[in-house]
């Protein structure tokens, strides 16, 4: 039997709205309520964090609406129940019977839990899940953890995954993990998909990898103008005056976007 916290009117005095009317714990039933109601209930529960909420929130880590799962992961972290959340979400992520949407949600939740214990399940899913959407979500979640140890798996994915959306997510995540190195991201500037190249350039800029200067100079002439613009931004972050000549050349690019970006960077470099 679940103990239910009585929600008195004085909660309004504590400073948060009782917008749903009913006990927020009652509103965590996915059989009765839609995503909006459950998200709102979890926002309300964060105001007083009753221990009874944990058992009700854990199943939502695999809810097919990833916004619900994300909010569930956030609330569990705020309640100090991250370890329980990791176990529950990892179980969904590794369950072949779970739907694709549920596995995506579980990966999103593992990122939101910010618990290093989720790295293993995410790395496994990144390498082995059959669905690109799940692998992409796992990559982004590894980035959200901001922890050492994920760079190798992400680099492998960036180099070898067949799906551009997954490689793009890996490139983005590499911008957020501390142990990323310049090599894989530099190589990704030659990826066949331009969105991957854009993310790679941005991540190189976020890390300020001076080793990538040459590749980034080359990327200014990428046939996709968005890549050229991203490379220009990265060069601004690195801030090396050696880039001036390449940027000056890029101001004359036939790509309006690249030319604008190069001009913008030169005004600030």
């Amino acid at each position, binding site marked *: 039997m679940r103990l239910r916290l009585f929600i008195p009117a004085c909660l309004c005095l504590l400073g948060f709205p009782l*917008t749903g009317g009913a006990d927020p714990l009652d509103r965590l039933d996915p059989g009765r309520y*839609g995503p*909006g109601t459950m998200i*709102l209930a979890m*926002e309300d529960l964060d105001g007083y964090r009753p221990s009874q909420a944990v058992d009700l929130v854990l199943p939502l880590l695999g809810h097919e*609406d990833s*916004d619900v799962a994300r909010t569930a992961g956030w609330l569990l972290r*705020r309640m100090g129940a991250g370890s329980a959340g990791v176990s529950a979400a990892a179980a969904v992520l590794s369950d072949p019977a779970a739907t694709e949407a549920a596995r995506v949600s579980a990966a999103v939740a593992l990122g939101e839990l910010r618990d290093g214990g989720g790295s293993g399940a995410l790395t496994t899913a990144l390498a082995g899940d059959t669905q690109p959407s799940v692998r992409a979500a796992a990559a982004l979640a590894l980035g959200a953890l*901001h922890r050492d140890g994920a760079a190798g798996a992400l680099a492998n994915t960036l180099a070898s995954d067949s799906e551009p959306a997954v490689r793009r997510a890996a490139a983005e995540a590499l911008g957020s993990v501390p142990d990323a190195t310049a090599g894989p991201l530099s190589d990704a500037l030659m990826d066949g998909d331009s969105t991957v190249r854009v993310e790679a350039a941005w991540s190189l800029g976020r890390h*300020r990898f001076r080793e990538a200067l040459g590749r980034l100079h080359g990327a200014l002439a990428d046939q996709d103008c968005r890549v050229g613009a991203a490379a220009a931004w990265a060069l601004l972050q690195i801030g090396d005056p050696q880039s001036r000549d390449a940027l000056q050349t890029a101001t004359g690019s036939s790509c309006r976007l690249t030319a604008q970006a190069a001009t913008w960077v030169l005004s600030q470099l």
Partner: protein
Amino acid sequence: MSVTGMGCQDLLPEGISEQFGFSALVFVSRAPPPNAGSLALPDGCRPGGNLLMLKPAAPGGKIIKLTDLDEGDVLGIDVAPDGKSLLAAICTCPGDRFHLYRMDLEAAEHGADCFTPEGDLGPACTRLTFGPAHDSRPLHLPDGRIAFVRSDPDGPVDMRGRGRARVLTAVEPDGSGLKRLDLGPGETLGAGVLPDGWLQLVRWTERDGQPLYLPFHLDPTGASAVEPDGPGLHDIPLGPLFFADLAACVPPAGTWGAGTICRRGDDGSWSQGAVAGIPTGSGCSPEGRVRDPVRLSDGRFLVSYAHVPGGCMNHEDGDRGLVPEFSLAVLDPQSGKRIPVYNQPQSAEIWPRPVAERTIPDPGTGVENCAAGGVGFEGFVGADLLGQGAARIRVLEGISGAVAPWMMEIGGSEVGAVCSGDADSDTVVDTWEAPVQADGSFRIRAPSGVGLKLQVLDHYGAVMAADPVWRGGPDCAVRTCSACHANDGAVSGFENSIAGRSAPVPLDASAADQRSLDFRRDIQPILDGTCVAQGCHDSSSASGTYVTYSGSIRGLDLSGSPSGRTTTAYQNLLFVDTDRDGNTGKILESRRVYVVPGDAANSRLVQRLGIPCRWECSGQPAWAPWGLSGGDVHSSLTDVERWLLVEWIDAGAPFHGRGATP
């Protein structure tokens, strides 16, 4: 770009364009939101968004697609004061970030593309921001800059741990000069320009573990303090404020981002609903809800109207599989009556903005006798101030340390050359005053490229409530006050105003004190009393360790011992660069010097002191962005001392201040 005929003509008003002087309406058409959700969820690029124009905004008007994105999205627009261009936050495909673009409305209307199929920019658009941050909700500032909300993957953490905070930021019109505007804790949910040139913004923060939504007044230059405006509230004013007592307000979650229009009560509370039939909270509202209001000159509002037939227009509708229908309408707040303007099923029409073309002089032609240089300021003080006795405009230097010959003029003619600073050697900075004409108009010429404050004085010389802050622009540019007011189609009419037609009026150079900060007099005592006295940042301590370019490790010494022509503390604050690995040059911790003169927002000192640790800092990596540590150990500084540091930095971080003994 495509042009299609407009349907539902029998439901249209008789022509709001004719009634209010609009030439057109622009708005955003987005894919309906997936759930009622929460404002805390990240802004994502959801396919299905485009920019549309309804021209004329009247029966028979045509819908013109200003963008033709298959997989893009739009998150905020703002029409320029002259009605000739707009700013839009656009992403072009899933996974892309929202970036700011300026669109030439005339070009786009006549077929010029904003984007090419190959991903390049078309001739109608210019991109203003770059990089992996999400930039949204752009806003024209009165000084010509552009404010927007940035969520940076390397920026500060949202205080509730939901991701990166949304930070109010500004850039110059060309996208350069990025500057954080709001230094306070929490994140900015929305902002609007007040009639006095300051910003009204709502900051979402947390107090005692509870979310709290606080309205603030903010000097957009960052040179003056932030002022709280009324008590905290749960209904958030998100949209532009057009009058001091009216705001768009939206419950924090559960209503698809729609709410009502709120009126501020006598007690300063914003919770009083001003639209008949629509509640302020997130309870059931059979009458629907509104968002993105634009006040029309007759007191009605142009809004995005959201309604769920048979539903509540809140999170409960999702429980029954009902989704809201967004459309454009004119709303009478007194009666609650709505007049439909435009609706396209299966899409959400939001952010309606009227286009009202106005004549604003081009730089280089607007200022007479331009050869003398300087930037012109002209416009009107607000009607409320005029009614309270506004009589004079006082001009003060906004940035100390600037020494630039400059001219001033009243009524379009030069009246003499003066120099900023202390021309009469009375140890106080000179200020100048010019009259406010009977119709509220004024016109001055000020130095270019120098920060200025314009104060409105009453007949007795007292500073009235308004304290607008302007910034100089390039020579011969003209800053008008048009952006202070709603782009509601009203004709500015400055050319026919008294100031616009007046003969030269002599300047009144009555001086007034202006603070002029001096490092040794005003700043070093703060450092001595806290940082140095506590033994953390004296000459023998290692706190604030940084690595020099040569690889040497040093502690941050903030003592006042002489060093060269200045002091150790001054040199370390201004010239110690970021923490870098001596061999690889890789950033180890920070990215910025401690003090960037004129830019407190990007100064590491302020970031360390002014942005306290807001959320579970222990879980963050050492290289994580600023703001994650330091607030606790620097807690001995008072708010006044923190703001004095901010003021000094924004004043150019001078070592010698005028009025101080050299």
